[in-house]
Structure formats: structure tokens, C-alpha cells
């Protein structure tokens, strides 16, 4: 039985605390974590604003996590996604996945990230260094393709 926890929050993710929390004990031999960061885009970007659909955001991530737990023998799966204003260098998203063996942990963490990109209701908008509000980040075909590569044949 996989222990799944999902957080959708405006504040920073305490990566040091999460790293300690992810340490398993018992039967787990492998922990894979992913952290996604706001890039500075060569100084062009002042912040990313992330809008989300409260309620559905949590549900969509839980559904993705549950799907991952059905595909791989994972022990713990923790998913955190921020919303609101995020400065360059700050983390946006975090996934930690523990498993008995490493391949399941790598695969499940990659799967969850691919689906969070295109199947969870979050939208990014750029705030630029010149003070203007830039456009909404466009969905990338490569993100749809990344999610698509996990489809069962």
C-alpha cells in the first residue's frame, strides 16, 4: 500500500526538511526526488505567477499519484505544488518517491512530473524585469508528448 501525500500551497517548500522526511527505513532502498525551479531566463524574468484551480488541483495530483502507485511498487509518494508569485531560483514543485528498488522510484517520479505538467490545473504567467506582465506560458507539445509516452499500449 503506497502512502500518498499531496500539498498545494503558496509558501516555499522546505527542501531540506523534505529530504529528511523522505528518508525511509525498513524496506525502502531507494528515494528519488524531483524539484522544479523557476529559471531566471537570463534576467528577463522577475517572477512567475502560478494560478490554480483550488480543490481540483489537489484532486488531479492525487489521481496522478494513485495511478503511479498502481503501476509501480512504490512505498511513499509525496507531491507538493506551489501557487502564487514565485521568484527566479525558487522551487515550484517537488516530488519524492521511495521504493524497494531504484528503477520503480525513478519511473514513478518521472511519471508524476510528466502528468503534473499537463494534467493538473495550474497555469503560469510571466512577470518581467521591466515591470510589465508578460504572457501566459504556452502549453508545450513536448509536455503532452511526455505524458503520452506513459500510455499503456
Amino acid at each position: 500500500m503506497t502512502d500518498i501525500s499531496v500539498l498545494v500551497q503558496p509558501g516555499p517548500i522546505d527542501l531540506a526538511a523534505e529530504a529528511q522526511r523522505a528518508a525511509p527505513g525498513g524496506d525502502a532502498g531507494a528515494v528519488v526526488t524531483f524539484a522544479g525551479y523557476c529559471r531566471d531566463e537570463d534576467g528577463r524574468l522577475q517572477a512567475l505567477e502560478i494560478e490554480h484551480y483550488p480543490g481540483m488541483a489537489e484532486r488531479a495530483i492525487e489521481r496522478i499519484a494513485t495511478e503511479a502507485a498502481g503501476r509501480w511498487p512504490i512505498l511513499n509518494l509525496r507531491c507538493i505544488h506551489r501557487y502564487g508569485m514565485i521568484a527566479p531560483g525558487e522551487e515550484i514543485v517537488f516530488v519524492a518517491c521511495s521504493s524497494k528498488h531504484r528503477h520503480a522510484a525513478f519511473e514513478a517520479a518521472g511519471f508524476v512530473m510528466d502528468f503534473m505538467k499537463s494534467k493538473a490545473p495550474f497555469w503560469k504567467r510571466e512577470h518581467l524585469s521591466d515591470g510589465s506582465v508578460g504572457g501566459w506560458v504556452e502549453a508545450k507539445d513536448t509536455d503532452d508528448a511526455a505524458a503520452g509516452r506513459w500510455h499503456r499500449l
Partner: protein
Amino acid sequence: MKIVYFAWVRERIGTAEEEVALPAGIVTVDDLLHWLKGRGDNYAAALQAPEMIRVAIDQEHVPHSQPIGHCSEIAIFPPMTGG
């Protein structure tokens, strides 16, 4: 019927949510999108490319062919860009 909008759909329509009374004959999500599109320039601008638009009924993502049925909230938004 409560409809909520997100991201550039919300911006173009100019509101985050509204209550609407659906006229008879609106059965599917597709019907709803076409009806909304005729409500004004702001709706037309938001929904001009329906194939781009994502819809969730009661917080579950659905295809445009989905019958709306009884539900408490429909969400209309652009492709998601999380992660």
C-alpha cells in the same frame, strides 16, 4: 449553473465566475462552449479556438462531447502548464 474560468480564459471573459441559466438544447460541453461564445465579444475572444479549451465538470476533466447532466460547477480553462 456555476461556471468558473481560469488563466487567459478568465482574463478575456473578464470574470472569474458567474451563474448562468442554460437555455434548452444545451446538452454537451460542446453545446455550452458554442452558446457561451455567442454571448459577446469577450466570450468570443476567449473561446475562439475551442480545440484549445479544456473543461472540467465538478473538478473532473471531461471531453467536449461529454453531456453536462446534473452538476454544480463547470470550469473552463486553457491547456494546463503546471510543474
